[in-house]
C-alpha cells in the first residue's frame, strides 16, 4: 500500500482518462512467502481480458489482491484511477465455485439477490427493483425457471451461472471472474462466454482467470501471461507466442521459488 498515490509514470497516461484497472508494482505474500512478484499491469479499455498461467502461478491471488481479499506486501491497485473502497459497487467479483458450501440453505434467488446487497448498504432490504434485477440476471444466464431451487440441487455449470447472475445483478462496470469455466459442462461454458461477450459489447471490462490455453486464444481479446510474475501482456495474438508460453509454462522460476521459501523461513537461499 506504500505506493498508493504514486503515479504510474509518463508513458502510462492515456488520452481517455485513467485506466479501468491498474496494478502498480503489486507483490503478494501468503504469510511471509511471496507468491506473486512486482506485477505492473494496465487495462485501459473494455474488453475480454484473460489472465493465463499454470497451476499455482498466482492468478487467483492477483485477483484477490485487487479486491483487497489478501493483503499486498507492496504496490497498489486502482480502478478508474481511484482506490477500490471508493468504487466498490462498480467492481463485480465471481469467486471460484468450490469456495462455498453448496448445501447451504439458500435458493437460487437468494444467492442472486446478494449481488444487490453491496448497494443496499447495512439495513435496507431488497425490494421490487432488486427482485426484478435478479430475475433479469437469471434470465440472462438461462436459469429463469430455477429461481426457487435449492442451490445444492443444481449442476456444476448451473451453479457457476448462478454466481455469474449474482455478479450481473450488481451492475458493475468491471467484472473479475476466477476460473468460471473450471469443471463446467460445454453448454454452460458457451452460455457463460456469451454473457461475457455481451458485457464487453455493453462497454464493460471482463477480466477472467483461466487456465485452458486452447480456448484462451479464441475467447480473449487481450491476455496476461502470469507465472509468479507477469511474463507478458497485450493483444492475444501478440502475447501467445511459443517463446512467451515457454517462459510461462516451463515450470516456476526456481530463483523465485527458493527465494520465497527463504523469506518465509527467515533464512537464506542455498
Amino acid at each position: 500500500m506504500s505506493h498508493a498515490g504514486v503515479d504510474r509514470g509518463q508513458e502510462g497516461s492515456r488520452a481517455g482518462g485513467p485506466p479501468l484497472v491498474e496494478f502498480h508494482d503489486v507483490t503478494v505474500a501468503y504469510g511471509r512467502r511471496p507468491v506473486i512478484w512486482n506485477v505492473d499491469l494496465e487495462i485501459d479499455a473494455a474488453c475480454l481480458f484473460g489472465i493465463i498461467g499454470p497451476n499455482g502461478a498466482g492468478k487467483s491471488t492477483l485477483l484477490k489482491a485487487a479486491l483487497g481479499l489478501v493483503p499486498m506486501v507492496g504496490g497498489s491497485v486502482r480502478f478508474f484511477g481511484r482506490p477500490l473502497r471508493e468504487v466498490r459497487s462498480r467492481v463485480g467479483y465471481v469467486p471460484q465455485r468450490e469456495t462455498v458450501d453448496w448445501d447451504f440453505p439458500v435458493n437460487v434467488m437468494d444467492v442472486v439477490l446478494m449481488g444487490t446487497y453491496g448497494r443496499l448498504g447495512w439495513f435496507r432490504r431488497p425490494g421490487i427493483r432488486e427482485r426484478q434485477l435478479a430475475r433479469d440476471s437469471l434470465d440472462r444466464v438461462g436459469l429463469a425457471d430455477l429461481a426457487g431451487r435449492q442451490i445444492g440441487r443444481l449442476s456444476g455449470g448451473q451453479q457457476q451461472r448462478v454466481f455469474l447472475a449474482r455478479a450481473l445483478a450488481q451492475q458493475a462496470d468491471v467484472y473479475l471472474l476466477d476460473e468460471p469455466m473450471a469443471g463446467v459442462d460445454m453448454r454452460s461454458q458457451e452460455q457463460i462466454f456469451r454473457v461475457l461477450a455481451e458485457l464487453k459489447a455493453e462497454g464493460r471490462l471482463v477480466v477472467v482467470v483461466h487456465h485452458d490455453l486452447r480456448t484462451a486464444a479464441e475467447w480473449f481479446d487481450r491476455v496476461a501471461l502470469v507465472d509468479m510474475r507477469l511474463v507478458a501482456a497485450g493483444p492475444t495474438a501478440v502475447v501467445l507466442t511459443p517463446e512467451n508460453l515457454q517462459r510461462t509454462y516451463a515450470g516456476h522460476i526456481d530463483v523465485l521459488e527458493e527465494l520465497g521459501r527463504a523469506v518465509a523461513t527467515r533464512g537464506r537461499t542455498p
Partner: protein
Amino acid sequence: MLFGNATFFGGDPAIHGWAMATAAVVAASCALVGTLLVVRRMSLLGDAIGHAVLPGIAIAVLSGGRPGGLLVFVGAVAAALLTVWLIQGLQAAGGLAEDAGAGVVFTTLFAIGVVIVSAAPAGTHIDPACILAGDLTFIPFDTVAVVGFAVPRAFVAGTLAFIVLVAAAVVTWKLQVFTAFDSAAARAAGVPVATVTAGLLAATAVATVASFDVVGAVLVVALLVVPAAAAELLAHRLHVMALVAIILGVVGACVGYLAAWHFNTNAAGMIAVVLGLEYIAAAILAPDDGVFARAIGRVRLAWRVACEDRLAGVWREEEAARGRPTGATPTLLERCAAEWLRIDGSFVRDGVTWRLSPRGRREAETVVRSHRLWEAWLGRHADLPLDHLHPPAEWVEHHLGAAMRRRIEVETGWRQSDPHGREIPPESSSQS
C-alpha cells in the same frame, strides 16, 4: 398420571409454568444464534464461548453484578470476544489449528472461572454446581416486580435477550446470510465481514449468559447446536431453518421439563435428552435425505426395476420366439411384479399364456430401447468389447429419459441395431 409422582418438584403449577417458560425462552435464543453458528460450521466456537464466558460472569458477580443483570451480560460478552481473539491469536502466532486453539482457550478460561467461583466468599449469588448443570427449580423464587407481578428474574432476562437477538437478526439478516454463504464475495462487495462475525459472537455470548442459570455451561452447547442441526435437515432456506430451530428448541425445553418433572430428575439433562431425540427423529423423517425417505426411494426403485425387467423380459421372449427361447428365471420380486402387471393390465390373457397388452408393449419397448441405445452409445464412445456392454445397460435402462434417448439416437447416427446386431425398437408415442 403425568404429574403423579413429583416429589422433589412439588405441586404448584405456577412455579413449574415459570420454570418451563424460562427454559423455553432461553432455548429459543440459543436456537436462533445456533442456526448461524451451525451453517457457518462454527458450532465448536459456540461450545468454546459457552464455557469461556464463565470467568466473565464470575468476575462480574464478584464485582457486585446480579445474575441475569446488565453487568453480567457485559462481562460475558467481553469474555466471549476475548476467547475468539485468543483463539485467532494462537492460530496466527503459534500456527495452532482453530479446533485445537478453541480447546486450549475455552478449557483454560472455564477452569479459571471455576477457580474464581470456588474461591468466592459464601453468600455471593454463585455456586459451582449450578454453573455446571443449571438449576431450573430455584429460578421461580428469585423474582422481580414487573408491572406489579412477581416475575422470575431469569425469565425477564431471557425474554429481553430474546427480543434483542430477534431484533438484531431481523435488521442484519441479509448481511449474516451473505457472510455465512460466501464471505469472500461479501467482503468484495463491501460487507464488513469482521464486524458481522463479531456481532454473531456477541450474540452467542448474550444467548449463553441468558441460558446459564437455566441449563448451566455444559448443556448450553446442546441448546445452541442440536435444534439448529436438526433444523438444517428439515429446511432449505436459512430463515425457515431458524424458525424450525426455534420451534424445536422451545418444544424440546417444554417436553424435557415436563419429562423431568414426571420422572423427578434433572431438568437440564432431560431437556438435552429430548433435543437429542428430536435430532434423531429429524434424521429419520427428513423429507429429502432422511433415513425413511431414502429407504422408500430404494424400495420404489427396486419395484420399478422389477416391473420394467418383467415387461422387457416378456418382450424379449416374444422377440426370441421368432428365434430361440430365453431361459431367464424371474426372481420372487419379479414374479410379484408380474402379478401386479396382470392386475394393472400391462399383461393380458391369451388362451393359456399371458401376452403384453398394447400399453405393456409400449413400456417394454421403451426399456429395451433404452438398453440397446445405451449399448450402442457405449460401443461407440468407450470402445468396449461386446461382453462389457450388457451389464451397465442392464441398470442404465431404468434411468434414461426420453430427451436423453433422443440425444443418444442422434449421437449414434440413428442406428437401427445394437452392437449385438439386435434391432433397437423405435421410440413409442407414449401419449397415445
